[in-house]
């Protein structure tokens, strides 16, 4: 099979101030995944490498640069899944881990379990040698700014509204959906999907969105497809978005159409918006979003392309 790499840096109304860095970031991640494939790595290695790049890039809401919880802390979620034996590793609400995708891979390969959360996940990190870093190392000035803006607004409106702060003007800056993700097919046809996030600004401590949930934020099955999703976490969880897309691919629907139909259904049924990337088991690529923008990049033997606005395809 010809190898395929697709990466996304989040589906939301990415402001101009972040657009340039976002598209550069996803291109770097795609190149990192490709290099791993060229030097003999498999799709699991490639997904881990791409997402590590995105987690280390402060422009994205994952790892370094993640948004803050209500208490001003950083809580991270990540998942990785391979489509051969349906192996999966997922972590949620881990603290002080620079690259949660690496911890998720350890869970997949070394734990009897699939999902570990909170303190238990941190204990496992220690046991399997994933280093922990001071929380401050993951916090960026932008994250603090968003957090302070949100808390100010929330305090003001709390007495007047229920917590529908998401609907307030200007809230897109604090409620950006910059979850990152990657799907890869390597030359053996092994499909792998991964997703990583810091969640939503000022989220309640312990809140878990769609990202680390199998079938919601990501899914991979060599019988159908590998998918990574981004967008409004609760909406994605309610409709099991990744499962929807993979099931359509399994029935022979082209990944682009599978994503379009699934996002449309989600919007109609529960009102949320988002995006997804997908590779089916024939190597077809799917990219789609019904938010204003999604930073994405793909790489194959034929071409390397990235985009931001709807319909955009720029060769790099």
């Amino acid at each position, binding site marked *: 099979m010809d190898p395929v790499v697709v990466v996304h840096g989040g589906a939301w109304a990415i402001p101009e101030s972040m657009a340039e860095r976002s598209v550069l970031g996803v291109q770097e991640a795609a190149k990192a995944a490709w290099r791993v494939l060229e030097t003999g790595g498999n799709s699991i290695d490639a997904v881990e490498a791409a997402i590590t790049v995105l987690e280390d890039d402060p422009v994205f809401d994952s790892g370094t640069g993640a948004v803050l919880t209500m208490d001003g802390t950083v809580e991270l979620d990540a998942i990785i899944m391979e489509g051969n034996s*349906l192996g*999966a590793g997922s972590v949620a609400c881990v603290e002080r881990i620079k690259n949660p995708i690496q911890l998720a891979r350890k869970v997949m390969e070394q734990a009897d379990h699939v999902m570990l959360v909170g303190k238990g996940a941190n204990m496992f990190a220690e046991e399997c040698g994933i280093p922990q870093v001071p929380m401050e190392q993951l916090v960026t000035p932008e994250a603090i700014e968003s957090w302070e803006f949100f808390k100010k607004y929330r305090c003001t409106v709390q007495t007047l509204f229920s917590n529908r702060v998401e609907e307030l003007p200007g809230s897109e800056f604090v409620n950006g959906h910059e979850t990152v993700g990657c799907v890869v097919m390597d030359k053996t046809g092994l499909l792998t999907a991964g997703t990583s996030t810091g969640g939503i600004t000022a989220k309640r401590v*312990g809140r878990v969105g769609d990202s680390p949930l199998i079938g919601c934020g990501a899914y991979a099955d060599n019988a159908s497809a590998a998918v990574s999703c981004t967008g409004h976490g609760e909406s994605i969880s309610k409709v099991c978005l990744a499962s929807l897309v993979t099931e359509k691919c399994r029935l022979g629907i082209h990944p682009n159409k599978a994503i379009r139909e699934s996002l449309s259904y989600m919007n109609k049924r529960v009102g949320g918006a988002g995006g997804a990337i997908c590779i089916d088991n024939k190597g077809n690529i799917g990219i789609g979003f019904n938010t204003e923008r999604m930073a994405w990049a793909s790489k194959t033997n034929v071409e390397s392309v990235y985009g931001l606005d709807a319909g955009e395809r720029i060769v790099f």
Partner: protein
Amino acid sequence: MICAIPVVNYKLLYVRIILVLIKMKTKLALIVHGGAGTVAQSRHPQKLAGVQQALRAGYEVLKATNNPVDAVEASIKVMELDEAFNAGYGSMLTCNGEVEMDAILIRGSDLKAGAVGAMKNVAHPISVCKAIMEKTPHVLLVGDGAEQFAKEHGFPVTVTTSEQLTAPRARNLLERVLAKQTVASTEASDSSHDDAPKSLSKGEGGTVGAVAINTFGEIAAGTSTGGIAAKLPGRVGDTPIIGGGTFCDDAICGAGATGLGEAIMRTCVCSRIANALEKGEEPNQACLSALEFMTSRIPEGDGGAIVLTKDGEVGFNFNSNQMSWAYIKQDENVIHYGIEKGDDFTVPYSDS
């Protein structure tokens, strides 16, 4: 003095009655399960009694209120109190000897859900799920954050609750698992120290679940569990993952699964049940298809599932050795229950 004489607007009343009648499209139905696995014969009586008791509690609420969410909560609360089941009191313990619970409640009309993962120190995780669903824009809360939420919303949360949640049987089981691990590791045999938890996860199971449908075709589904014996702290299974251990959508069905959580998650069992129903499979077969798919891809995983379709049809199946279950349909007014393959015991339902 002007007196307000009540005038009945018969036309409006008539229209409203017609609208309610049009909305009524299904009969009430409720199904519960008490876990799929290998259940020792000596435990059958308490499992069978437990699922019947849970069914009655839920059905009373369903008849009185026509509210499937409250009915599911009522059934599951009974099982969370019952030592016979691996939920709430009676939960399996982590390898550190603590109770950490997962649970979920989903409403099929708007797909709203509330779920908790690895939550400690609360007696009724299912009720915390209902509060998350009804009072927050979120779906899943885990660990300390879930416990904090429960405290803020008036649920009793204390360390003594955790001790109260620990059943003697669960503690004995954990000690046996850990002893087996110690023995295995000192014997340097082929079996890795991981053998013990795996074999016990093919033990009794005991996750509990319930699905209810009201007369408007509105469905609710819920699941609650203590997880597998000697699990790592922080381990979350299939239960609180929509599409994995639980699923609910008025347009298709409400479903709940039980068995090896990791296998159910990796194969999204309840999503598969929904897909099978949409393809026209009948309910019992839809459950079996999903379970057989799971076991075909992940041989060490088996389990069971329950389902209510959007038309109020009942289905359940299991490819484990046993699964305790009970259901009732309004038009029959008979409680069906069982635990072994092929069981279909019945007892007439009468209001208490």
